[in-house]
C-alpha cells in the first residue's frame, strides 16, 4: 500500500520569544522541529506499512530548510520525501495551503502510485487551526476521518477501513471506504527511534524537490497570499489587566487568621460564590 504523510516544520514554540518593544516574533536562533502532532500520524503510517507492506511518502510544503524535517522523517523510517517549495506559496492561509498540498498529492499519485491513506497531524503548534487536513480531503474527494484515536480493521482488498474517532462526549466507531484522509489524535502511539539502517539511508537519500509547476499547479492565483481569502491585518501582544491584585500576607499570622481573611476577601468580591458554596455544603451534609 502507499501512504502519504503531510508534515510541517515549525519553530519550537516553547523557545519562541516576542520582542518586548516591536511585538514581533524573534525567530533567530529558534530551533525548528517536526510539528509534534504530525509524529503520531507518521508513526501510525509506519506501523501500517510494516504490517501490510508498501511505502510511506512524507510531504511538506515550506522553505528550502524544511528539508531538515523530511530527512528526520526518513531516519524514522519513511521511504520517500517530497519537499514542495516555491516563493509563490509565501503567505498561504489554510485554504491556499490545502490547495497546494492536495495538488502535490495528486501529482505524487501519478508518479509514485495512488495512496490508500493520506495522514496529517491533528493540528500544528504554530497555526493551531486543524483545518488543512479537512481542506485536503475535500479537494481530493477523500473520505475524511479527523481526530482518529485508533485504526481498527483495514481491508485493503475490500477497500475499507474502521477507525475510532474522538467525538464530543465519547468515541465514534466509523467504517468507510478507501482512500481516506486521517488526522491522527495525539498520544495515540510513541514515535519509534529509527534504526541505524534508516539513519544511514536518510543521510544519503535524495529529497524530491518540487516547485509549484513541478507539482502540477497551474493556477498561481490559488497559491500564497493571492490564493488566501483571509488577511492578517494586525499582530499584537496580549495585554494584561490594568487593576492590580490585592495581596494578602501569609507569614505574619496564624494559618487560621490567614484562612479566614482570604475566605472573607473572596466572598466580599464574589458574594454569588458564597451562596453557591453554602448550597453545595448543605447538599453535601444531606448525604
Amino acid at each position, binding site marked *: 500500500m502507499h501512504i502519504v504523510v503531510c508534515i510541517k516544520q515549525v519553530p519550537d514554540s*516553547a523557545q519562541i520569544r516576542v520582542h518586548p518593544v516591536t511585538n514581533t516574533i524573534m*525567530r533567530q536562533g529558534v530551533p525548528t522541529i517536526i510539528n509534534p502532532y504530525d509524529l503520531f500520524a507518521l508513526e501510525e503510517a509506519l506501523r501500517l506499512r510494516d504490517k501490510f507492506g508498501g511505502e510511506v511518502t512524507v510531504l511538506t510544503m515550506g522553505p528550502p530548510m524544511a528539508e531538515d524535517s523530511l530527512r528526520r522523517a526518513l531516519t524514522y523510517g519513511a521511504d520517500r520525501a517530497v519537499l514542495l517549495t516555491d516563493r509563490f506559496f509565501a503567505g498561504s492561509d489554510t485554504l491556499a495551503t490545502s490547495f497546494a498540498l492536495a495538488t502535490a498529492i495528486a501529482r505524487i499519485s501519478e508518479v509514485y502510485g495512488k495512496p490508500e491513506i493520506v495522514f496529517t497531524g491533528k493540528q500544528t503548534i504554530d497555526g493551531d487551526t486543524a483545518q488543512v487536513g479537512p481542506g485536503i480531503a475535500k479537494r481530493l474527494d477523500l473520505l475524511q476521518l479527523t481526530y482518529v484515536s485508533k485504526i481498527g480493521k483495514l481491508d485493503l482488498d475490500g477497500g475499507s477501513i474502521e477507525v475510532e474517532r*474522538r467525538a464530543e462526549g465519547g468515541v465514534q466507531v466509523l467504517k468507510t471506504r478507501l482512500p481516506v484522509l486521517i488526522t491522527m489524535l495525539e498520544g495515540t502511539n510513541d514515535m519509534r527511534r529509527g534504526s541505524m539502517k534508516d539513519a544511514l539511508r536518510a543521510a544519503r537519500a535524495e529529497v524530491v524537490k518540487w516547485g509549484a509547476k513541478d507539482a502540477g499547479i497551474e493556477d498561481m492565483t490559488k497559491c500564497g497570499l493571492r490564493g488566501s481569502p483571509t488577511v492578517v491585518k494586525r499582530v499584537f501582544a496580549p495585554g494584561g489587566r490594568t487593576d492590580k491584585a490585592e495581596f494578602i500576607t501569609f507569614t505574619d499570622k496564624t494559618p487560621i487568621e490567614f484562612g479566614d481573611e482570604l475566605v472573607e476577601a473572596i466572598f466580599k468580591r*464574589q458574594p454569588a460564590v458564597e451562596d453557591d458554596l*453554602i448550597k453545595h455544603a448543605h447538599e453535601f451534609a444531606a448525604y
Partner: protein
Amino acid sequence: MTQPPKPAAPAAAGRGNMKAELSDHFKQYKHVWVFIEQERGVVHPVSFELLGEARKLADKLGVEVAGVVCGAPGEATKMAAAEAFCYGADVVYLCEDPVLEHYRNEPYTKAMTDIVNTYKPEILLLGATTLGRDLAGSVATTLATGLTADCTELAVDADKSLGATRPTFGGSLLCTIYTLNYRPQMATIRPRVMAMPPRVDKPIGRIIEHRLDMAEDNIITKVLAFLPDRDSNKSNLAYADVVVAGGMGLGSPENFQLVKRLASTIGAEYGCSRPVVQKGWLTADRQIGQTGKTIRPKLYICAGISGAIQHRVGVEGADMIVAINTDKNAPIFEIAHVGIVADALKVLPALTEAFRRRLSPHNRDKLAS
C-alpha cells in the same frame, strides 16, 4: 509557511492595507448565523454562547441572527430549534433527515453548504469542538471562503467586515484576521471563550425548513457504534463555577492531594497546567489553557502556576482569580485579583480548613442566630 525568517509584524502590516472589495454576488450575503451543534438530543452549550455573540455582531450590522439546526426528524432536533430562539435566534434554518442522526462529515457538509448557498449569510460561526472543526474545514473549502479557527474575540469594523482575533505562535501573540472579499466570513470559537447569554423563554419563531436530498445508500461512511466516555473520566472543568488548579510549583504528584482536597471541600473541579499533564501527574482532560480547556468560573484558585501566556488565555474569563505563588514576580499576579506570595503547600491546607469552618452548616447556623 514559506516565509523567510523575518519578524511576523512587518509582513502582516504589508497586507494590512488591503481593502474590502465585495463583488455584487457577495453583497447579497446578509445576517449572522450560528451552527447549532446537537448530538443525541443535547445541544452543545457553545452554540448558545455563540448565539449571544452573534446577537452583538448582528446588532452592530443591523441584521438578524439565525441558527442552523441539523438532525434526524423528531423531538430532539425540534427541541434544539426551539432552544435556539430562547437564546436569541430570530430565525432557524432546520434540516431534518434520517441521515443526519449521527454526525458524519459527508451529509453535514452537504447540508451546511446547501443552506449557505441558498440563503447566503455574511457571517457563519461554529464551536471549535471536534465536530465543529471537522465540519468547518470542509464547508470553508467547499465554499472557497476564509475560515479563522479558534477565535478569542470577534468584532465588526467600521466597514462592516468581521475582525476575528486569535492567538498565534503558541499564544505569544494575537492576530486579527479578516475575510475581506469572500462570503460568508467563517470562524470557529472554543467553548467558554464567549459568555453564556441569559435564556429567555420564547415561543418558537420563524423556521425555514431545508430538504437534504441524500439517500443513506449514497453515504459511504457508516457509524458502527458510539462509546460514551465513562463518567468517572469526565471532568466538567469548562463549565464549573469554581475551579482549583495546581502547577509544577506543587513539586510532586502526591501534593496534588492538597488541590483535590480543597476542590472537594468547596465542590469545585480541579485542573492543572500543561507540564503537570506531560509529567503524567494528571490526565489530559484536566489541563487548562490554550491547548487544554478554556474555563470561565466565578472563582479560580491556582497554586504553583507561573501564569505563562498559554495558561492565561484559558483562564482570563474567570470572574475572580486567586493566585498562590512563591515568586512575587510571577506573571500570574498580573491577572490575579487576590495574590498570596507564599508556599502553596502551606496555603492550600489553611484555605481548605478556613472554607470548611466557614461552610459547615453547624457553624453557619450559629452565625445566623
